[in-house]
């Protein structure tokens, strides 16, 4: 079995990790950035859905978006 054919549930089927395995991203941060950029339509659909605000905030895609967000007061250069 070659490495390309390995199937590790939770790893090889992870859309972010797949970007690294495919050579499209060099780091996890870069892979998450690519994934978020490609997911803007999905994010818009989630926001437009009838999901409540608390559930929306807990959605993995929204949590990933928040984790790649702007610096707050405590992390700013100023």
């Amino acid at each position, binding site marked *: 079995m070659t490495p390309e054919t390995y199937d590790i549930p939770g790893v090889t089927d992870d859309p972010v990790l797949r970007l690294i395995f495919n050579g499209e991203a060099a780091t996890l941060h870069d892979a998450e950035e690519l994934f*978020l950029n490609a997911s803007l339509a999905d994010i818009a659909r989630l926001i437009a859905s009838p999901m409540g605000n608390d559930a929306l905030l807990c959605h993995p895609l929204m949590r990933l978006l928040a984790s790649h967000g702007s610096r707050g*007061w405590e992390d700013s250069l100023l």
Partner: protein
Amino acid sequence: MTSDQKLADVITALESAGVHCLVMGGHAVRYYGLDRTTDDFDLHLAPDCWDDLTVRISRSDWFRNRNPVEVASWRVASFRRFQIGTLPSGREEWLEFWKENHLLPPFEDLFARREVGPYGGRECDFLSLPDLIRSKETEREKDWLDIQYLEEFHDARVTASVRSGIAQLGSALAQLRSRRGLETHLLARNLDDSSTVAHALSLATNPITVALLLPAARHATLPAIPIETAIVNRLRTLGVGSPLHLTLVEAVRRRYKQDAMQVDKADKQAIRARTDAKGE
């Protein structure tokens, strides 16, 4: 000689040759407070200096001693670049002139709102900070790293001008771009009066500003700004500064960036297509 002093020498030499310009690019970024490395000299030229630029430059001893070599630009009608040396690292050193930048208004407008400040031992004319931010909304990822910092600097300056009584709160809020700026206003309780925030929203020109302010004036009427209706509707239900509010701001910011990158890329592709067509 520091990079700042070298820029100052370049400006002095250009002035002696009758060439007028505004500093943009990395040196302007440094002037406004981000201490990052830059070796190139990016300038926005007064249009009347464009046609005889080479002749004018050759009048200056500073440039004659460096034998500047003009290298073909793919934006033939609006951008010229001269190699003026080689750095100790082996990297080429460039002097670059914009006659008109596709992201910016005409030079006269830029000049009218320029900022004059000390740099490299003399006073230099810089693009205003909002114009500098706009000039960096390109398809290059590294420009957006600059923008992250410049937006914070701009918000801090505007907030300081409100504190010192120079600017009105409404007009300051209408320019808000950063999360740090939002948090500063929250701490100062500047968003408590929803009518002031609503006024700021009516003046806003950027969807990020709208996303930052809307939860503080949920019933405000919005100007015609491209922002998704579903996001607007959701923002009208949120507490200002709440985790979901900040997350939606990031959705708007990411969309704004992606759209701006696509516009810049399309502009470049159109120019290349025209150039290729002429070459056929």
